[in-house]
């Protein structure tokens, strides 16, 4: 494609000097075959494709800063008296884990920076994963053949949450101990086997003396190893499937258009690693995070008002806060719905729904094709509405998780906020679903309008009989094409109620249900214009005979200030 003239490889310094080493390596590893395919692999360009990269690079920052922290951190709950340089806590009895965290913060130069980089990178890691997931969801990038990669992503997110929780429990300060106490209550609420799981995890009654070492193992070995493996699989599948791309002129389901890995993406992605690392380093330098020394060592009889988990656990916290106090006793067991439902069950439901979505959608639409072109959210109104409803529910839970802060900051009644959230978590998502779907459909109509009637030029014309009208001009062909690349809506057919012999169809009920789901999924969506529509519209444009001035090829309408826009 490129019309670039390269220097003959034999004449370059690389050809002369590297041929030997390259040969040596290739004779042993035979990597040239793989490298040939991948060094100049094409990646399409769009800002939203960078979100996953943020997650990837913040994970690398976590590995690097985490390794530095392990050099001094002591994962022990053994009790010692603090003798370090932070005066307010000198002489206080505390666990070695907490004392060594103070040691890193106050006596190791750059230790505090590494702690803060690590914590900021963790917050960024989860945030980037969630936003990346939303991007993939709203553009339909999880569709065939990428469903397995979607599941791997769900695995990464769920393990990221556990990893983050394990990490902020390690310093054994008052706040992290309160978090552990919460998890202890949560584990106990698991029906029938709760107490057993609690005693096995904590090595006896809460808090015991093994939970920090065990979490440490999970935090620095078990979960990172799983995360690394899953990330490797995620990337390999990305390379194998080739990245999705936005549709546009010359960009089809059959190709991928963009820049080569070497040098452009190697430089951009490599440079981006330094940007992410630099960003977290600056955050660590400028914005304090988790100042554990102000909380003091863990003491099960103390808690600070306004205790909050890290932001990504906020939705569970909120759900727990607004859950009614239901608890029941039957079969001689106590069932703590008030904790089990909003904490354990909610997370289970969330990840199950996320994991099942691509398969549910596929079953509803019956679409078995491969998809490499992204869909604009408006062109899948029900999917988009479903996603926004989910985000709304997450948001209500998250707000409920801060109900005490909201109450104190705005002088509101905490009981009122809680009661509002008790209904809002269900009602607001329903409203969000309806509103989002209507917005999507309106945007689809606007697209059709722009294809068939062109865009508003800002030129007002007066007709001979005195009427005013605004001149429309057709969109450039490439823009028109881009707006019409999505799939045409399928024809919905009612399932046959009887088979050829007039006997009731055997799978009648399932087929009917499926037909209803399909009708719901495509209900209201606007189909793109047909060939006839466009032809008709073109004739209409042609009929126009006012022509006060030639618009010229560069003309793109008039801005609000009256200045003609051009390239």
């Amino acid at each position: 494609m490129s019309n670039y003239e390269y220097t003959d490889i034999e004449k370059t310094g690389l050809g002369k000097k590297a041929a030997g080493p390259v040969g040596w390596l290739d004779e042993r590893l035979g990597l040239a075959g793989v490298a040939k395919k991948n060094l100049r692999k094409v990646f399409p360009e769009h800002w939203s494709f960078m979100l996953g990269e943020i997650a990837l690079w913040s994970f690398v920052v976590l590995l690097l800063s985490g390794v530095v922290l392990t050099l001094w951190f002591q994962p022990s709950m053994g009790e010692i008296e603090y003798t370090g340089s932070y005066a307010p806590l000198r002489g206080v009895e505390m666990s070695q884990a907490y004392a060594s965290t103070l040691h890193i913060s106050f006596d190791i130069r750059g230790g505090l920076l590494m702690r803060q980089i690590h914590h900021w990178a963790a917050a960024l890691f989860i945030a980037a994963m969630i936003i990346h997931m939303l991007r993939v969801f709203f553009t339909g990038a999880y569709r065939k053949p990428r469903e397995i990669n979607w599941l791997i992503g769900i695995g990464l997110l769920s393990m990221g949450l556990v990893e983050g929780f394990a990490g902020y429990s390690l310093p054994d300060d008052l706040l992290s101990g309160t978090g552990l106490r919460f998890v202890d209550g949560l584990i106990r609420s698991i029906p029938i086997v709760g107490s057993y799981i609690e005693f096995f995890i904590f090595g006896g009654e809460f808090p015991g003396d093994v939970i920090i070492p065990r979490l440490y193992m999970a935090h620095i070995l078990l979960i990172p190893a799983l995360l690394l493996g899953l990330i490797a699989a995620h990337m390999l599948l990305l390379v194998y499937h080739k990245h999705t791309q936005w549709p546009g002129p010359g960009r089809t389901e059959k190709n991928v258009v963009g820049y080569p890995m070497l040098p452009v993406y190697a430089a951009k992605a490599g440079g981006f690693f330094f940007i992410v690392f630099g960003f977290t380093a600056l955050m660590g330098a400028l914005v304090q995070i988790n100042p554990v020394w102000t909380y003091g060592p863990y003491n099960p009889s103390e808690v600070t008002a306004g205790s909050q988990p890290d932001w990504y656990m906020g939705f569970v916290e909120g759900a727990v806060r607004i859950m009614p106090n239901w608890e029941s006793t039957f079969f001689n067991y106590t069932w703590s719905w008030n904790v089990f439902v909003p904490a354990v069950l909610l997370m289970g439901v969330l990840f199950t729904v996320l994991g099942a979505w691509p398969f549910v959608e596929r079953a509803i639409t019956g679409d078995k094709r491969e998809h490499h072109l992204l869909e604009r959210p408006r062109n899948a109104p029900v999917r988009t509405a479903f996603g926004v409803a989910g985000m709304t529910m997450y948001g209500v839970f998250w707000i409920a998780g801060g109900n005490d802060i909201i109450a104190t900051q705005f002088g509101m009644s905490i009981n009122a906020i809680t009661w509002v959230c008790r209904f809002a978590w269900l009602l607001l998502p329903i409203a969000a679903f309806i509103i989002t779907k209507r917005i999507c459909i309106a945007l689809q109509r606007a697209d059709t309008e722009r294809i068939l009637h062109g865009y508003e030029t800002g030129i007002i014309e007066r007709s001979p009989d005195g009427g005013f009208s605004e001149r429309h001009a057709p969109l450039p062909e490439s823009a028109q094409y881009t707006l019409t690349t999505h799939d045409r809506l399928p024809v919905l057919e009612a399932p046959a109620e009887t088979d050829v012999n007039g006997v009731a169809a055997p799978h009648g009920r399932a087929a009917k249900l499926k037909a209803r789901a399909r009708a719901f999924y495509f209900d209201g969506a606007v189909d793109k214009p047909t060939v006839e529509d466009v032809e008709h519209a073109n004739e209409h444009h042609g009929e126009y005979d006012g022509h006060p001035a030639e618009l010229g090829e560069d003309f793109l309408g008039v801005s609000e200030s009256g200045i003609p826009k051009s390239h």
Partner: protein
Amino acid sequence: MSNEIEHNAAGAVTEPIADPGLPEHQYRPTDVDPAQERRTERQISFMFGLASLLAVAFCVAYFAIDDNQTFLGWSALNFALGASLGGALLLIGVATVQWAKKLMGDHEIIEMRHPAASSEEDRYAVMKDINAGIEESGFGRRPLIRNSLLGAMGALALPAVVMLRDLGPLPYGHANTVWAKGMRVVNDVSGLPIKPADVEVGQLVNAEPAILFDVDEEGEKVLHGADALAAKAKAAVIMVRMRPEDITPSKGRENWGVDGILCFSKICTHVGCPISLWEQQTHHLLCPCHQSTFDLADNGKVIFGPAHRPLPQLPLGVDSEGYLIAMSDFPEIVAPSYPELARDQKKLGDSA
């Protein structure tokens, strides 16, 4: 699925606008203007140069700045190290991206996609190979070997599970705390015993059982480390004094207080946070974690929030020296609910 196939086959005809193909290549200023190109080159190498300087600045700061120097109210060392390191990293990143965007070749390349699936022949060959493996091994023909192998692999799961048994003891002792008849209620910080006269109306005292401060003959604490924390996690209490006429004790609890002084578990029955937010006027106690609210004048009843069980009350008395003591362990189970709670509570009731 028939409509999809039709749709695909007829796809070319039904598209209203034909694909105009990739747009013409747009040249960047740096492609056409050598002066721009040189300027960008200088900018990028300036950023790399500055990054090197900042890396050196990091080292200087590491040795030159004292641990306890402050800058704008917080660690000057942290600020200097973070700003220099972050600045160096950011500059390297920005310069590299700038290089890629402004100077590296920007001709778009088209690569063709292939279906994710392998060819039918490959799939067929793989199935044949697997079948060959099954037949040659006799996996299908020798059920005795196969089943005993599967059994052995299954049996290996047993050691793996059994190994986990020593993760912790079986659940015990949820029902009891270290409180016992005659144990003094002491201040949670000083460990000093408390007389009824020390507690004013409206006041809340954070207290603990005396055993947490007891020492043996050698001056060592009787309970320390994890044992002390575990004991404290269940036995911490709060004592409040209300006007006796405000209190509405339920049947059997009339004499659990001393002159309007009542003692309740400090551990929330929801998920176990220590409860400490006391509203004097209303006699409400609010848990800061999930806002469960308990009415201490009404036997610790839950009046709001996700907690289900009332706050357990500790019967109080006064010993011969006039100090407040517990008259028994908690008659109800403290701390968060667990599956065997109902059973344990019944046992507690029977033994009382």
